[in-house]
């Protein structure tokens, strides 16, 4: 012990310890990735083609049930694909055509047509899904990952 020398036994013990730690790490990572969410095509989480953009009149809200989002065409003509999940606690937010607003039944949050918060407790505007218009003039919405935003603005709107 007085000598500052690492014995062979110490090295072997260190090796066993490192191997054990490695085994635990590998197994945990394998387990975690085993448990991670799966993605299935054609369902919510996949790509949706909604056809010709011109069939949707300005100032309209079209629910896409399978994709759990609303296709919103603002009165100026731009498009938004808005996730129907309330940003407060996850309720499904229905569109109220008479007031032109989204009103959450659970805790009273209200959103304007472009998803901005008009009435709390929702902490941020409704999330968006990436929307594009392809060469054939058809609308495509990718529901794999919603985009969080802190404010609704015109940059988020997709125009033809």
């Amino acid at each position, binding site marked *: 012990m007085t000598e500052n020398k690492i014995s062979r036994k110490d090295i072997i013990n260190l090796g066993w310890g490192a191997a054990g730690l490695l085994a635990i790490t590998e197994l945990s990572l394998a387990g*975690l990735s085993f*448990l*991670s*969410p*799966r993605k299935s095509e054609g369902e*919510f*989480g996949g790509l949706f083609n909604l056809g010709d953009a011109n069939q949707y009149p300005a100032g309209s809200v079209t629910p896409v*049930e399978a994709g*759990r989002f609303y296709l919103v065409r603002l009165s100026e003509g731009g498009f938004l694909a808005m996730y129907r*999940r309330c940003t*407060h*606690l*996850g*309720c*499904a*937010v*229905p569109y109220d055509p008479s007031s032109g607003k989204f009103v*959450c*039944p*659970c*805790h*009273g949050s209200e959103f304007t047509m472009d998803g901005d918060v008009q009435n*709390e*407790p929702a*902490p941020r505007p409704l999330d968006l899904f990436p929307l594009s218009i392809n060469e054939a003039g058809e609308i495509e919405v990718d529901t794999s990952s*919603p985009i969080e935003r802190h404010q609704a603005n015109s940059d988020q709107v997709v125009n033809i």
Partner: protein
Amino acid sequence: MTDQPNLSPDNLPILTRIQRSIQRESVAPIDDRSRMKLVMNSLVLHIHPAKVSKPALKLTYTFGLGGLLILLTAVLAVTGVLLLFVYTPSPDAAYKSMIALQTEVNFGNLIRNLHYWSGNLMVVVGVLHLLRVFYTAGFTRPREFNWVMGISLLLLTIAANFTGYLLPWDQLAYWAVTVGTSLLDYIPLIGEPLTRLLLGGPEVGAATLTNFYGLHIAVIPLAIFAIVSFHIWRVRKDTITQPRKISQEADKEKVTTIPHLVSLELVFALVWLALLITWSSFINAPLEEAANPAHSPNPAKAAWYFMGFQELLLHFHPVFGAIIIPGLGLLAMILLPYLDQDMATTGIWFRSLRGRVLTGLSFFLGIVGVFGFVWLDEFYLDFPGWLPFLPSSISNGWVPLAAILLLLIGYYELLKVLGSRTCEARQALFTLLLASFATLTFVGIFLRGEGMALILPWG
């Protein structure tokens, strides 16, 4: 044995030998020595010491709450295994299993009711058990870590309840779990991936049902079994605290576990079993229509034991309501036994006469204070409106939190100035917070209507 020298194992009849090979001791010993030996040598009974404190057997000390929790666990295990044979964990089949339980399966409703009510009762009894230990200072040295294990058991009980809540796959289940897991979303950084992992996707769906099923029938029960074993073993090693009156020494008298404790336990278990079965025969567990992910009910409420948190969320910025305030509360609970070194009062209800008065007063203050706060906040308080130049995490988070912390610290310091001992002041503070949380839960469950608007009982 000595007066029957001929009874060596070879001379015994075969049936007696078989019986002795299974149960070595006599099952009905008549003298104290063999009774103690039976406890020591029995796999089940040796969770008890051979002798127990006589005053601690009094029902008005422990109220048998720990024992009741074990009984409930047993009832849940048995009824849970039975339910496994009927239930299919998929969105298409889960609700049909519920209907089958109500219409086709013999005693299906009774078994489901027993499971449902025992599970819910377990949360209540778990909290009462914690309060009993707290108010008799049963968590002081050397029992600090057992208190921590008790808290983790309570959390696991709530997790078991919550995962079980989803399994019927009705509207109640679907939206309570949606709202409940969305609370996790607010944890900074890890909240979103954690919720995704738990749900198996962005929303409650088929993957969530499989996940919750696995957690509910395997992971959580095994974890509870492991920790409960450790918990009870520690109680056995440290012994239970002994009750005593103010300024009296504890009565040191001990009695043998058989029959004094064991017979009491058996009678207690039978009475509770009868109560549970009677209750479950008449009162059905709720079942609403099948889950519909497109249609949220109004209002959508979390499971009742989370309503205190959901109510907090109505008053504070989400990070504060869902994470910071509950987190601080939990941390304080875990640290309690390590901060409190006043062991001289162990076994005395509420520690002292002053402790009793302060506990009552703080409980009252907590209830009145929170009702007042909820009412004011509903109609008058509007921090974000008054401080429009600040982000809502400050105006609706740090500002009210700081105000409340200042009030609490002021209350604590006032009690100290008025001559309370540290442990009495701390107990008063705990009581104040307990009463506040209980009141928030009450308001959330009973006084929130459509759109979570406050319903005043007088109109």
